[in-house]
């Protein structure tokens, strides 16, 4: 196979890559102008559908299919939300795209909006992404000036307005209905579905929510074609019914205990080991890897032995992880305590649970308290069974909560305990130094 040339990240090293001047000099917005003339919205939807593009936000839902869920012949308005609330820990691909090549993203957004005939797009950027927000804002302003946004884009009958929105820093705003609620000025409590956003979303109008990387892929599909997109990746596994395959390039974030934490663009289906050894230049300080996280902490943890599975939409599932997620690979070396890893993960979910559904609200904080107690040296053996059971109950049994946060909070706990049980048991048996108990904890431990 010929050496893979990055497409999505092609321009990030260019000087002033975020300005419309350099972007247009590199051939930007030509695809948009052409598409507005040559394609009908329906054709564009079919194009994306045929490409097999699946959402890059984590769940991997086929993008073209999602677009077809919009009610037919709706009088409008139809809204488009761009989910740039990239809050999954270890994930930074959207950030690089927005900061370094905002016009590529924006062109993808305009194309996607044209395909679904949206009249307004809300670009929801997480609070912490100041530079990305400013870059996108600048891009939107420049696009208005050049006539790529606004009334009758480039002489076509299609008009689109873009609204920048900055979140207030909550993980749950990355859930599509949570994002919509937040956009409406409410508490970001995910909605009960159905109705799905495509039927009734933002401001009770049909709404499509897509990830930044997804819309960037849409732009590339329009430019380079379906065949290019399908030339890489993993075809559907016939053993899995309704598998849509994992086509196209993917941005892999590599972080944690590697020599070279980085963001790389590669065809779908690369193995975790190759990512770490080749692109991350191996585990740092000459150590060995103990395990890793395939795609953001909510996907669960893998042991070093499982590093050879391909990172496509099916791969992580074969080793008991939830899925590919955001393809943000995090490595921890053999000197890392898995108890610390899990403690950190549980702390995150206990902090970020929105508090709407009982199992998640109480379960995440209970797990955090339990892991915290184990970490302080006061764990009991039965805690591991309880943790595993709570991890199972708060989301893995389908239907127990409204959104997927609980699911994501349960997987790493379940995974970590199943795959590293020995280490937890050794830790509990007093191999680690105990920290003193205080107050109530002391009273309860003495029972």
């Amino acid at each position, binding site marked *: 196979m010929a050496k893979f040339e990055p497409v999505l990240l092609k321009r990030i090293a260019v000087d002033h890559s975020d300005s419309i001047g350099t972007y247009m000099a590199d051939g930007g917005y030509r695809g948009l102008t052409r598409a507005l003339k040559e394609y009908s919205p329906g054709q564009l939807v079919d194009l994306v559908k045929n490409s097999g593009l699946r959402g890059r936000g984590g769940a991997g839902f086929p993008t073209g299919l999602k677009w077809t869920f919009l009610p037919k012949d709706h009088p409008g308005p139809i809204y488009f939300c761009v989910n740039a609330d990239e809050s999954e820990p270890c994930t930074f691909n959207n950030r690089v795209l927005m900061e370094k090549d905002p016009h590529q993203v924006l062109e993808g957004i305009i194309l996607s909006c044209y395909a679904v005939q949206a009249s307004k797009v809300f670009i929801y950027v997480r609070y912490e992404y100041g530079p990305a927000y400013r870059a996108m804002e600048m891009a939107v302003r420049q696009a208005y000036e050049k006539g790529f946004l606004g009334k009758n884009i480039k002489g076509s009958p299609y008009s689109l307005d873009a609204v920048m929105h900055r979140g207030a820093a*909550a993980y749950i705003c990355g859930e599509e209905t949570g994002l919509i609620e937040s956009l409406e000025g409410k*508490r970001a*409590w995910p909605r*009960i579905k159905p109705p799905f956003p495509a039927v009734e979303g933002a401001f009770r109008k049909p709404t499509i929510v897509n990830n930044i990387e997804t819309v960037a892929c849409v732009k590339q599909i329009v430019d380079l074609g379906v065949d290019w997109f399908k030339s890489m990746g993993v075809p559907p596994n016939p053993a899995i019914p309704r598998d849509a395959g994992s086509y196209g390039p993917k941005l892999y974030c590599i972080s944690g205990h590697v020599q070279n934490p980085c963001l790389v663009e590669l065809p779908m289906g690369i193995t975790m080991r190759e990512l770490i050894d080749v692109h991350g230049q191996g585990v740092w300080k000459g150590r060995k890897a103990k395990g890793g996280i395939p795609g953001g902490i909510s996907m669960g943890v893998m042991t070093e032995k499982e590093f050879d599975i391909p990172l496509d939409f099916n791969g992580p599932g074969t080793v008991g992880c939830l899925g590919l997620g955001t393809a943000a690979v995090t490595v921890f070396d053999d000197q890392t305590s898995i108890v610390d890893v899990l403690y950190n993960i549980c702390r995150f979910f*206990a*902090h*970020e*649970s*929105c*508090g*709407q*559904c*009982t*199992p998640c*609200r*109480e*379960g*995440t*904080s*209970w797990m955090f*308290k*339990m892991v915290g*107690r184990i970490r302080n040296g006061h764990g*009991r053996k*039965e805690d591991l069974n*309880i943790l595993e059971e709570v991890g199972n*109950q*708060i989301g893995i*049994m*389908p*239907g*127990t*909560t*409204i959104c997927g946060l609980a699911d994501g909070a349960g997987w790493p706990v379940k995974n970590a305990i199943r795959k590293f049980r020995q280490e937890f048991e050794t830790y509990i048996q007093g191999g680690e130094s105990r920290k003193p108990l205080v*107050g*109530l*904890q002391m009273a*309860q*431990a003495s*029972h």
Partner: protein
Amino acid sequence: MATVYINDKAVDIGDKRLNLVQVAELAGVTIPHYCYHPALSVVASCRMCLVELGEKTPDGSVQMQPRVVPACQTPAKDGAVVQTATSKSKTAQGQTLEALLLNHPLDCPVCDKAGECKLQDYSYQFGFAESRMVDEKNTPPNKPDLGPNINLFTDRCIMCSRCVRFTREISGTSELHIVNRGTHSEIDVFPGDPLNNKLATNVVDLCPVGALASKDFLYSHRVWNLKTVDSVCPGCSTGCSIHIDANKDVVYRLRPRENPLAQGYFMCDDGRLGYHYANSKNRLSAPKIRSGQEWKETGWKEIVSGIDNDLRAVAAVNPKGVLGVLSPFLTVEEGFLLAQYLKSLSKDARLALGPIPVTGEDDNYPKTRNGQPAKVQFTIRQEKCPNRKGIEAILQHFEGKIVHLRDSLQGEKAEAVFLTGGYPPSTQSWLEPNLAKGISKTPLIINQDLFENAVAGQSKYLLPAAAFAEKEGTFVNHAGLAQGIKRICSGPRKGRTDGQVYLDLLGRKGLLHAFSLHKEIASAVPCFAPLLTMGPQGVNLEKGS
């Protein structure tokens, strides 16, 4: 026609749009739920009502979904198969309960809600016997000043958000909201904007646990010692259906009773907290007769014959000089008996409608913060009496017209006035000075009231009246809905209910049983005919036949 199978029992729901909780109720199966309330929007967030759902295929086999679904959010469809007691749904429900109790203080011994708490009931029915939690519980601070009438025990809250939705959807005042996130979420108000709307205390009834407490009832009584009767709030002409909770002749609280024919699910704080006069020590407690300047307490036998003799003497000389004033706080039965008695003295005896207390204007809810009108869901009426319509119908029948006291006093001079009251102290000024002056000129005043009123000093007979919790009968609300009120307290020891006094005056034997008079009333006054079919939700006298 749609058939739903609840635990293998077929329920025909016709073409009604119901959710699974409602259908299960029809089948006699309880699906536990906290956040769901029929008057509020569905949020499906407590996850207590998780059940297994499947579908009956045409060939008769059943296909169950692998997931559990929240019953409150799932519409019932034809052929739906619901399993509420399988191990999967039981586990889901039990685990939700365990989660709810993780940070709950379990302080039932000092909690007002104990005994009627859904957390207790469901834990017993659906929960696990033990908690596996050994870690420290969250202890958020209590909020005693959530509102003038409401106290929040933050740690007991299970975040069902019913109260928040109530203030947004029913009262429309939006005082309550949720602060913080995750396990630290709390119900709160904005500084300077306390929960003080006139429907606020309904959140206490809505709260399935002991988090929101009514300051009026707090620590006053254990709920299992209370006795409850169905009644009607006497506070205004809306005539909210209520429960009266009392013990040992003391009323402890009023609660709204669900009644789609009357007010719906709720009641206002004016009515709810307006019962205290019934327990007042200042009430008239025994019948008194005046001789000169002296009051003499005396027995009812003497009083009844005294009144009868005095009235007959007046009626013999000047029949039109006898004036009966029927208060809108009398029940239909009492009004009927008194009118019957006075008319039996003389056909020319006059009857008048007592003053109708009116305060302000009708108060509609939900309020809207932007001033836009919303669909009215609840009204506190300006007319602060429960039975104007019922008494008017009585007057219409006996007098042929409705005469107000004011007009009666301007007409022929009254020689004897039988004045009935029953007005609570909040309408103390009901007997306006000019009316009082008009009445006090009368030589013979028979004055029956809860408290000493403006003409008490001029009365010859001063009789204690019965409060709403001490008598039975029928009230007719603003829309013509007749509802029964029942007795739960015995009232002052030396007192006698108004109806009993009239029955004695009529010379009829025995104790008053108001509802057995319905046949007599219905045949005498045709518009009361529907009373014969009155159920617990009442019956409308104006609609239909």
